[in-house]
């Protein structure tokens, strides 16, 4: 989506006439999403007589969102509001990285590898991590998950890397 966390906001980049930067930026982002949706649904058929085409409802909602986004932006300009919140990079980065790692490795490498790796990557998300302790907990969790999901719950999850099975 259009959300781009990670850029650290500097108050001075906002012009003085914006009284509520939080709403101002939020509203603009919503408008961008709405425009994106309008573009994405532009190839769909519209109204045919009085019956809806595939594109009617998406465009309707997109226009509504565009209007609402504009209203939020206007509110951000006119009324005194909160400043942009501070973004942190460490948590979002490592948690997202862990999720991506899991998604990429689960098929070829199996669940044991994927769970353990993403556990360790996610643990980087906070400076408080102590590695020995984290490693032990990671092993326990991986064992627990390997027993719970495929065996206790009967879900079709592959535990080992596929090159070992073939």
């Amino acid at each position, binding site marked *: *989506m259009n*959300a*781009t*966390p990670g850029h650290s906001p500097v108050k001075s980049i906002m012009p003085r006439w914006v009284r509520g930067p*939080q*709403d101002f930026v*939020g509203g603009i*982002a*919503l408008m961008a*999403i709405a425009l994106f*949706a309008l573009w*994405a*649904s532009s190839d*769909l058929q519209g109204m045919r007589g*009085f*019956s*809806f085409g*595939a*594109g009617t*409802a*998406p465009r309707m*909602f*997109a226009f509504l*969102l565009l209007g*609402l986004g504009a209203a*939020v932006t206007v*509110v951000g300009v006119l009324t005194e509001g*909160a400043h942009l*919140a501070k973004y*942190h990079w460490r*948590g*979002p980065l490592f*948690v*997202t990285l*862990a*999720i991506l790692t*899991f*998604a990429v490795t*689960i098929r070829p490498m199996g669940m044991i590898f994927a*769970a353990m790796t*993403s*556990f360790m990557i*996610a*643990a980087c*998300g*906070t400076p*408080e991590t102590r590695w020995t*302790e*984290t490693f032990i*907990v*990671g092993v326990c*969790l*991986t064992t627990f*998950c390997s027993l*719970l*999901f495929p065996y206790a*719950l*009967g*879900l079709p*999850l592959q535990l080992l890397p596929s090159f070992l099975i073939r």
Partner: protein
Amino acid sequence: MGDLFSNLGLGFGVVFQLVQWSPAFLGGASIPIPVNILLCLIGALVGTLVGVLPGIGTIATVAMLLPITFGLPPVGALIMLAGIYYGAQYGGSTTSILVNIPGEAGSVVTALDGFQMAKQGRAGPALAIAAIGSFFAGCVATVLIAVLGAPLTKLALAFGPAEYFSLMVLGLIFAVVLAKGSVLKAIAMIVFGLLLSMVGSDIETGASRMAFNIPELADGLGFATVAMGLFGFAEIIRNLDAGGETDRKLVQEKVSGLMPTVRDLKDSTPAILRGTALGSILGILPGGGAVIASFAAYTLEKKISKNPSRFGRGAIEGVAAPESANNAAAQTSFIPLLTLGIPPNAVMALMVGAMTIHGIVPGPQVMQKQPELVWGMIASMWVGNLMLLIINLPLVGIWVRLLRVPYRLMFPAIVVFCCIGIYSVNNAPTDVMLAGGFGLLGYWLIKHDFEPAPLLLGMVLGPLMEENLRRALLISRGDWSVFLTRPLSAVLMVLAAALLVLAILPSLRKKRDEVFVESEN
């Protein structure tokens, strides 16, 4: 009346159903096992376990635990989910009383007086009263669902597409009016959710909409995926921001003396009664639910109390009323879902997601075609509440110990657990990536003070709304006035418009904000 008893009888029959279990090691002998009760018990336990973790609310808990019910038969899965839901709620109140970190919005007010009581060494009575109040509210709400279920289903049969559409509009407006924060932003979130629900194939023509030829998107955005991203991952990321451990003021004293005194009971009985009544009513309203019920109950108690200054300093009524209201509303909010097929709030939206995964489309037909499912679930609610009362009081010590597990170990485990959960829905790695993306989106929304709950509600109602809107307009041959000329639909629309106007009126806005601000001081 006879119907009521036979229905409840059917329900309890389903819940207490015994399944003969003949394991190999017994050599042919079989033991009867009450499977559904066990599922309810496990659900309540696991729900509490996850709900107790600070910073994880009811929605996140249910979303995270959804996958563990996939392997079960539909009845068992729904009974277990109901157990998880109550467990999660009770877990939320335990954390707010003991640590002053409400796991979810519904127990914010419980923290006000509950934590004060805990500081005075009266955590035991506070927890006990919360459980007793919840149980009583649960009993009343169960009966209420049984009484109202059948007549409302008949009403539902009189509903045409136009009425359904209007009812959903009313529900969404209710959700906006009763939500915290800016009305405008809440509406924007709902529309955003509606827009997201449009991704996928068109129901009538099958045309692919905004799917960019990604095969995994052809079926639309998975509901569990979005919920887990917006509530699971986003919460984790946000908690990491806060620095996890720094603001955890755990009550270090041992929780001793669970039993409330006679005076406590006498003080809290009227509060429980009032909370239950208020909660039951607010729960039925579309868009209502547990959060507003607990706020309203607390405010009411404070208003009618002879000595309002006691509130916020450990008044037991301040725990009893919101907890009962919270639970009553949580339960009666099943009524619109089971009878009309319309989820009144985000948690119920998740329930719809779960039902759909099991091939059940909630609505009036379910009541008639699968009565054992509906009544079994209703009966299991009561059983679930009983379980909470029985298992949680002795287990308080364990929950307290769980709270001492540092967040630095807890959050990677939750991340992994969520990943496996999402992956197991469709065995699709793309779903996991999407959930990660929604996690970032959720983080961004929180940073900009947008509530993700209305988004979720909009997303579930989106396809239903579109379908009914299209049908209504097709029947009326393109005449938009159909929503105002059909009497039932017109009433609903007028109500929705009136509510919206009221919410925007400055005087009422101020009152509404006061209710929420009160909880923050």
